[in-house]
């Protein structure tokens, strides 16, 4: 306790993070508002898929409606509600930036354990992102869209995906320990 106050005092003027349970209640309220207003939960990976499908549209031919991205593109063009998640993720960027600015945490840096090099951290970040990208499509959503929002709507898929994400993380934690501890 004492040590952490000294640390934050001597380092930059970063404000401490909020209590995790309070953070959880606030996040729950945001999630509930999404359900209350739009009828669906929060998400992130869906926005990536949608934006990629728009970028891919000139490449895939116009009459192609069976491809993965073509299908996503067509439903985006037909239903404006599909843009919801894109707007929401733009909001995440703004909200994160705002919070970081207010708490003195805006800083360009690569965060890594002192035991590994910056390069190693970035290579693993790229690989991890790739696995997450592929996995989020199989899971029809990521930690927020499939696991969190899925759980909140009592969905079997939500609980299953959550258990698989964290279960795999724990199962493999030993092999990647050098990267983190």
């Amino acid at each position, binding site marked *: 306790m004492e040590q952490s106050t000294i640390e*934050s005092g001597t380092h930059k003027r970063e404000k401490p*993070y909020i209590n995790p*349970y309070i*953070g*959880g209640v606030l*996040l*729950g309220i945001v*999630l*509930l*508002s999404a359900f*209350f*207003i739009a009828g669906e*939960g*929060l998400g992130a990976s869906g926005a*990536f898929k949608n934006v990629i*499908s728009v970028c891919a549209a000139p490449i895939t031919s116009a009459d192609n409606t069976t491809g993965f*991205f073509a299908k996503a593109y067509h439903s985006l063009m037909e239903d404006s509600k599909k*843009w919801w998640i894109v707007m929401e993720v*733009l*909001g995440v*960027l*703004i*909200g*994160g*930036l705002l919070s970081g600015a207010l*708490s003195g945490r*805006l*800083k360009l840096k*690569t*965060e*890594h*354990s002192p035991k590994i090099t910056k390069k190693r*951290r*970035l290579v693993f*970040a*790229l690989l*991890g*992102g*790739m*696995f*997450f990208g592929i*996995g*989020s499509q*199989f*899971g*029809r959503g*990521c930690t*927020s869209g*499939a696991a*969190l929002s899925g*759980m909140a709507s*009592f969905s079997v898929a939500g609980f*299953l*995906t*959550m258990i698989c*994400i*964290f279960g795999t*993380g724990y199962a*493999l934690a030993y092999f*990647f320990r050098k990267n983190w501890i």
Partner: protein
Amino acid sequence: MVAPLVENGIISGNFNLLIALFIGLGFGFVLEQSGFSSSRKLAGVFYGYDMTVMKVFFTAAIVAMFGLLFFSLFGWIDLEMIYVNNTFLYSAIIGGVLMGIGFIMGGYCPGTSMCAAAIGKIDAMVFIVGIVIGIVIFGIGFPIWEKIYTAKALGPLKLSDLIGVKDGVFLLLLVVIAMAMFYAAEWVEKKFPRDVY
């Protein structure tokens, strides 16, 4: 029943998109304030030195579930109109496992990486590049795994229905489990040393 507001035509589709921006803003703000913009803090959940992810995640799910059930009880929200994720058994498991690998390697998930990139974390920006590559790989190879992707479709199945209890009873069970997990989380954090990052 007034909610969901969009489904009942109380607010228009276009206005809904503006609201999405603000909901996302709240989402990003809370994630960042909770420390989800730090990969080392997020990964802590797997090593016991920082259990924030578990605490925030389960508290949020429970609060939202309580809200949905009580709003429904008060007649404010029509639960039939709430989107329940469709369950595709194999795909959900494969996806979860791949995401678990991604999490332990990369230290982020898509939402938290956006949040971390917003405050200048270069590792998060690289993670985002990885997500894009991953989704493109999935899309291009889609014909190969289309069958498994759509196999074992169980529809919008609820876990409470599957085990045959009312939503409220199920939620109560989940609260008991979460309380035990929080208690264990507090204990395990004291056991393992915590870095300052």
